[in-house]
């Protein structure tokens, strides 16, 4: 397996020139029937990637591919960054959308804005969503639609480099750290066990109706 450097994302950028790509497109409902947390790579963008209708358990090899879709063509079939437009990941809360991107090998998504729930889900699964201005996104489209050069994303420096250009991006430090260190939220939160219990005891007295049917 490829060794992953948690502080650097490097590789090919696949572009999808569309606004409002919803999580139903990233992974259609059919595949939410899996009860696993991994193994979604074959179903990423299923409706656009294949010409036939798929089913959970049928592998990419057995499907009829849409040759016009970018992720079916080399070198984009091993892309590690996805570039798109406005409001990426809107719609359903399905974390499967992030799992599919992650399992395919996408480590960062660049867009001019994201759906809130999707954005949040990314950080819990090691996928970095990068929000840039519409102008920067346009420049990146011009650069990467015409050539398949690589991008470098330096997580700690919050900087991306391509050709001879670079763009700084903003992202919350703590969210970023979750990706770099792969932290588990449940463990961190349970360090505040006492504060939670104290709050709860007080609430049970002050707002007893909340607990009435427990």
């Amino acid at each position, binding site marked *: 397996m490829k060794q992953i450097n948690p502080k650097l994302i490097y590789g090919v950028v696949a572009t999808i020139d569309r606004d409002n790509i*919803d999580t139903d497109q990233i992974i259609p409902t059919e595949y939410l029937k899996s009860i696993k947390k991994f193994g979604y790579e074959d179903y990423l963008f299923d409706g656009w990637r294949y010409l036939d209708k798929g089913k959970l358990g049928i592998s990419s090899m057995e499907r009829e591919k849409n040759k016009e879709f970018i992720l079916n063509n080399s070198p984009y079939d091993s892309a590690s960054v996805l570039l798109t437009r406005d409001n990426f990941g809107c719609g359903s809360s399905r974390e499967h959308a992030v799992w599919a991107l992650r399992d395919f090998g996408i480590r960062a998504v660049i867009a001019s804005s994201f759906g809130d729930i999707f954005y949040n889900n990314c950080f819990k699964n090691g996928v970095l969503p990068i929000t840039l201005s519409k102008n920067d996104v346009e420049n990146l489209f011009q650069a990467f639609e015409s050539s398949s050069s690589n991008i470098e994303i330096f997580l700690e420096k919050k900087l991306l480099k391509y050709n001879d250009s670079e763009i700084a991006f903003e992202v919350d430090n703590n969210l970023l750290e979750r990706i770099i260190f792969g932290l588990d939220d449940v463990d961190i939160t349970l360090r505040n066990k006492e504060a939670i219990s104290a709050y709860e005891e007080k609430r049970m007295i002050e707002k007893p109706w909340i607990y009435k049917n427990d």
Partner: protein
Amino acid sequence: MPKTLYDKLWEEHHICELDSGESLIYIDRHFLHEVTSPQAFEGLDQKNLVPWRLGANIATPDHNVPTSRGDSFNTDNILDEISKIQVVELDKNCNKFGIKQFDIKSSNQGIVHVIGPELGYTIPGMTIVCGDSHTSTHGAFGCLAMGIGTSEVEHVLATQTLKISKLKNMQVIFDGKPKAGVSSKDIVLFMIKKIGTAGGNGHAIEFTGSYIDSISMEARMTICNMAIEAGAKVGLVAPDETTFNYVREHSFLDKDMLAEAVDYWKTLKSDEDAVYGKKVKIDVSDIKPQITWGTSPEMVIDFDEIIPSSKTPSKNSKNIELAKKYMGVEDNQKLSDLKFDKVFIGSCTNSRIEDLREAANVISGKTVSNDIIEAIVVPGSGAVKSEAESEGLDKIFTAAGFIWKDPGCSMCLGMNPDQLKPYERCASTSNRNFEGRQGNMGRTHLMSPAMAAHVAIHGKVGDLS
């Protein structure tokens, strides 16, 4: 400092601030369904943890369940093996951890966002989460309610909290009295057209104004339900007498406790001079019935309007072109030129009793058009179903040629047997017209229950006034 309703709910549930700058927010109620919970239970198990507060959790299967079940149905009768696994997995997890579930055989099973309020599990002032984006529905009761991902489902099970940052405040003011034939669905679709599907990103939207004051809890739920289609995780309506009456009717609290709670709930409203980051004012009196023509909920027009052209150059022309191609619609076509194949009345947006009454009203005494291959009505819950039957609504629907079904998400999404075939055009009362949402290559037009009923009879959309 004056506060908004959202500010008040936030502060009330705030446990502490974390080093990260995020806040730990206490969760009063957690709804679960079969699709987004299995991986969360697995995570809990791996960490050797149990649910923090069992009684906070309520589960029901809805997304995968077949809707032609009848009385003796059980999980073994689910034909799709993979769907069955998810429903069985929910049974297993609920039994193992001791979580209350309205299972597939329960007379109270239904769409999670429909059963919560009607069984009294949703009451004002709560924080409510569920691994489902339409959790915003419960905001109609003045609850801070939002959809979460599966990692967060595990987090809530394990810690009874959510680690989040505060949203920004947005206010939408709906004033005026709508025309005949115009419902809350039209009004929320109109709003989405106006502010766009990203218009509420990063915000909690509070719905206010004389129109909101005048409408029922069902209609408020329809509006809060679709806040997420406008990009807002949270939709809110301040609780008032309409809310308290609904809660009184559906509550398991005794009289004294209810009275005490109502006193507190009355404080749950925005202060007069509260400041919102964004404000939108909409006069509802001019709104016509709204219908989507494309593949995003913002692609909405009046029922008698011409579908937008992709030839007029605009920043959207590429999206418009792709949507038109998918939907099989052409330049200069009107929505009323389109012939429909199927009609779906249901989903957490429009499957409550009031919705069924509105549709039945249009259908009464008429028959489903020969052009329509299938017209289905799917009550949102067991309770809605039996209430509708006691009012005789099922008879009105079946006499007209509709199929009267058992509760579930049904044709809102292609996860159970109710699906569109490729290129079928559907008049749907659900909330998402995304590509493939109702079945591979299916074409969805979102509209109100009354308009969907009109399509069933005439095969096309038309004037309801």
